[in-house]
C-alpha cells in the first residue's frame, strides 16, 4: 500500500519535472522587436486569453467576432479561458513564487486590486503599452495612467470603460432634476422619501458615497497620489455631514437603506423612489429593452462629474506566447473592434479610444452605434468623467459610513 502510494507521488513529481523541462520558454525578445517582427513571431501561434466568463454576451463576442478577426488578420488562434479573475491571479502568483518560467496564461483581463497584487509581485510582463500601435495612435495616455488610483506604468492597457450614471423617469413629475451634488440635498428635502442609495457594502452604494466624497471635497486629483490618512481624516467628516443632513429625508427617513443595488432597482421600477444609479452607462437602455423600465427612463450625470474606471488587459510574466498576447491586446484596441464592442447589440461596453484621435471614418463607426434614447452621448459622458481614487479610500469610506452615518 505504502509502496504504491510512494510510486504515485514519484510519478507526479516526475511529470512535474518533465513539464518544467519541456515548457516552452519565451526567448523571443519582444522588447527590442519592431511591430512587424512581433506580428511575424505571432503568425500561426495560439494565444490564451484568461478572462471572467460570467456573461454570455461577452463570451460570444470574444469567441465569435474577436477570434475571427484575430485569425483573419494575423493568423493567430484565440483560446478563451473563462475563469474567475481571483483564480487565475492566484495561480499566476503561485507560479511566480515557484519560479515557473513556462506558464499557461498569455493575456488576462484584470483590473484594480488584482492588477495591484500581480504588479507588486512582479508577475506581469512589461511595460508593453508603448509597443502597441493602436494604444499609441488612439488612446489618450492620461486616461490609462491609473487603475483605481494605482499607476499602470504601461503594464496594462485599457480596453473598456465604465462610468457611474443616475437614472430617472422623465414622465414622472418631481419638480426639477438635481443636476449637481450641491443641489441634491435640496431636491431630497423637497421630495422626502423619494431618494436613497444602497448600503455601501454594496458595490454601487460604495461608489455613490465615494462619488459624493470626491464631489464635495474638491475633486479626485488630490487623492490620486496614493493613500493619505491625514487628507482622509480632514475630508471625510464633510461627507458624513452631507449624508447625515439628507438622511431624515431619504426613503424610510434613513432608517433603512436598500441592502443591495437589486433592491433599489426594484424600488425604482415600482416608483417607490425617483432616482436610481448604475455603474454601466447604457444600463437604462438595456432595462428598457428587457421591459423592466418604462421607455421614458433617461440617464443623467452630476455637474461635479461621476467616477469612471476602465477594465484592462495585462500579460503574464511567464506567458508562453508574449508576441501573440501583444497582438491580441492591440487588436482589442482596434477602432473597428472597439466599435463592435460598444454596440449594445453585442456587448455595449464603452470604448477607451479618444474620439479626437480617430479618423473621420472610424469616428463614423461610433456615431452609427445606436445607444438608445436613454443613454447619454459619449461626449456628455466623457465631459463628466472623473478618475477613480485609490482602493484604500474606498475601504475606509465603506467602513466608516457604518460608524458615522448608520450607527452615529
Amino acid at each position, binding site marked *: 500500500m505504502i509502496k504504491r502510494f510512494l510510486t504515485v507521488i514519484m510519478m507526479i513529481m516526475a511529470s512535474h519535472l518533465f513539464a518544467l523541462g519541456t515548457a516552452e520558454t519565451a526567448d523571443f525578445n519582444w522588447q527590442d522587436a519592431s511591430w512587424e517582427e512581433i506580428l511575424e513571431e505571432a503568425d500561426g501561434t495560439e494565444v490564451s486569453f484568461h478572462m471572467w466568463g460570467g456573461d454570455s454576451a461577452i463570451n460570444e463576442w470574444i469567441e465569435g467576432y474577436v477570434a475571427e478577426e484575430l485569425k483573419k488578420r494575423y493568423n493567430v488562434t484565440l483560446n478563451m479561458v473563462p475563469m474567475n479573475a481571483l483564480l487565475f491571479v492566484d495561480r499566476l502568483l503561485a507560479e511566480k513564487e515557484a519560479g515557473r518560467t513556462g506558464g499557461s496564461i498569455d493575456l488576462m483581463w484584470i483590473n484594480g486590486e488584482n492588477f495591484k497584487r500581480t504588479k507588486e509581485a512582479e508577475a506581469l510582463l512589461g511595460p508593453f503599452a508603448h509597443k502597441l500601435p493602436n494604444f499609441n495612435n488612439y488612446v489618450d495616455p492620461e486616461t490609462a495612467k491609473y487603475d483605481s488610483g494605482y499607476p499602470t506604468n504601461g503594464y496594462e492597457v485599457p480596453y473598456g470603460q465604465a462610468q457611474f450614471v443616475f437614472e430617472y423617469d422623465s414622465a414622472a413629475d418631481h419638480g426639477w432634476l438635481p443636476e449637481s451634488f450641491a443641489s441634491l440635498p435640496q431636491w431630497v428635502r423637497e421630495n422626502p422619501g423619494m431618494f436613497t442609495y444602497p448600503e455601501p457594502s454594496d458595490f454601487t452604494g460604495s461608489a455613490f458615497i465615494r462619488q459624493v466624497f470626491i464631489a464635495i471635497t474638491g475633486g479626485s486629483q488630490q487623492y490620486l497620489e496614493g493613500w493619505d490618512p491625514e487628507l482622509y481624516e480632514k475630508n471625510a467628516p464633510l461627507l458624513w455631514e452631507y449624508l447625515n443632513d439628507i438622511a431624515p429625508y431619504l426613503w424610510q427617513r*434613513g*432608517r*433603512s437603506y436598500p*441592502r443591495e443595488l437589486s433592491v433599489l432597482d426594484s424600488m425604482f421600477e415600482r416608483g*417607490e423612489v425617483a432616482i436610481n444609479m448604475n455603474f454601466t452607462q447604457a444600463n437604462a437602455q438595456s432595462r428598457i429593452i428587457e421591459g423592466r423600465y418604462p421607455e421614458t427612463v433617461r440617464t443623467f450625470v452630476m455637474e461635479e462629474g461621476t467616477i469612471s474606471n476602465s477594465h484592462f488587459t495585462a500579460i503574464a510574466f511567464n506567458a508562453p506566447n508574449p508576441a501573440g498576447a501583444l497582438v491580441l491586446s492591440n487588436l482589442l484596441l482596434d477602432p473597428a473592434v472597439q466599435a463592435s464592442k460598444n454596440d449594445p447589440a453585442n456587448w455595449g461596453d464603452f470604448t477607451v479610444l479618444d474620439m479626437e484621435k480617430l479618423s473621420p471614418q472610424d469616428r463614423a463607426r461610433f456615431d452609427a452605434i445606436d445607444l438608445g434614447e436613454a443613454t447619454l452621448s459619449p461626449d456628455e459622458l466623457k465631459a463628466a468623467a472623473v478618475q477613480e481614487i485609490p482602493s484604500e479610500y474606498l*475601504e475606509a469610506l465603506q*467602513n466608516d459610513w*457604518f460608524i458615522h452615518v448608520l*450607527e452615529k
Partner: protein
Amino acid sequence: MIGSSTFLKNRNSFSGKRSFFKGELYKLTPLLIPGLMLAAGILYTLQLSLQPADLSAYQAALAQPGLVRNIFFSLYVAAISTVVSIAAGTALAYLVWRLPSAYGRWGQAFLVPLVLPHIAVGFLVLLWFSQTGILASMFERLSGVFPLASSFQSPLFKGNGAGIILGYVYKSTPFALLLIMPVLRRIPKNYLQTGLMLGASEFRCFYKIILPRLVPGISAAAIIIFVYSFGAYDLPFIVGESRPRMISLYLYRLYFTRPIAERPTAAALLLLVFLCGIAMVMLYARAVRPAEERERKL
C-alpha cells in the same frame, strides 16, 4: 430528543447488565461529532479573539458603535416573535384539539408554512406588506368604495422590526403548533368535559386544566424559536431595517467584510453574543422551572 428518549428506554431495559457502559455508551459516540464541532468552533474563536495577547479585542468589540442598541433590538425582536408565535400556536393547537376527531386532520393544514424556507417567507412578507404590496393595492381599491381616512402605510423598514417579526410569527406559529399538539393529545378529553360539567367556564378550564399540562411543549418550542430568531440572518437580510440592525447582520459585516486584522474584534463580539444567548436560555430555563415542576405533579 429522540436520542435521549431511546437512551432512557435502553437504560431501563438494561438494569443489571454489566455491559451497559461498554455497549451503550459506545452507541452515543455520534453525539461527539456536533459536540466536537461546537467545542472546536468556540476554542478557535476564543483563540482568535485573544490573538492581540490581551483583552484589547474585547474592549474594541464593546466599543463598536451601535452594539448595545443592536443587541437589545435583536432581543426585542426575538422576544416578541416568540411570545406571539407561542400564543398563536397554543390557541390553534387547542382549537384543532377541540374539533371533532373527524376534522382533526384538517388541522394539519396549519403546518404548511413549516416547509417554506425563510427566504420564501421574507418574499411573502414583502409581497403582502410592502408599500406596493397586495395590502397596499387592496387599500387603494377599497378607498374608492369607502372613504378611508388615509392611504396604506407599509409597516416594513420603519425601524421597529415589524417585517422580521411578521416573518418569524408566520414561520414559527406552526412550529409551536407542531410541538404542542402531541402534548395536548396526551391529555384525556374528559378532563375538560368534567371541568365544564362542574360549571367552570371554558377559559377557566383551559387556563387551569390544559395550560399547565402544556408547559413542556411550550417551553421547548419557546427556546428554539427564541434562539433562532435572535441569531438568524436570512429574514433580517430581506425584510430587516438598517438601523437598528439585527445582530446577525451586524456580526456578518464585522467578520467577513473587514480586514483580517480586525477579525479578533469580530471573534470577541461573536463570543460575547454567544454567551448572551446562553444566558438568555438559562434565565428562561430558571423562569419556567416552577411551572414544569407543577406539571410533573399533575
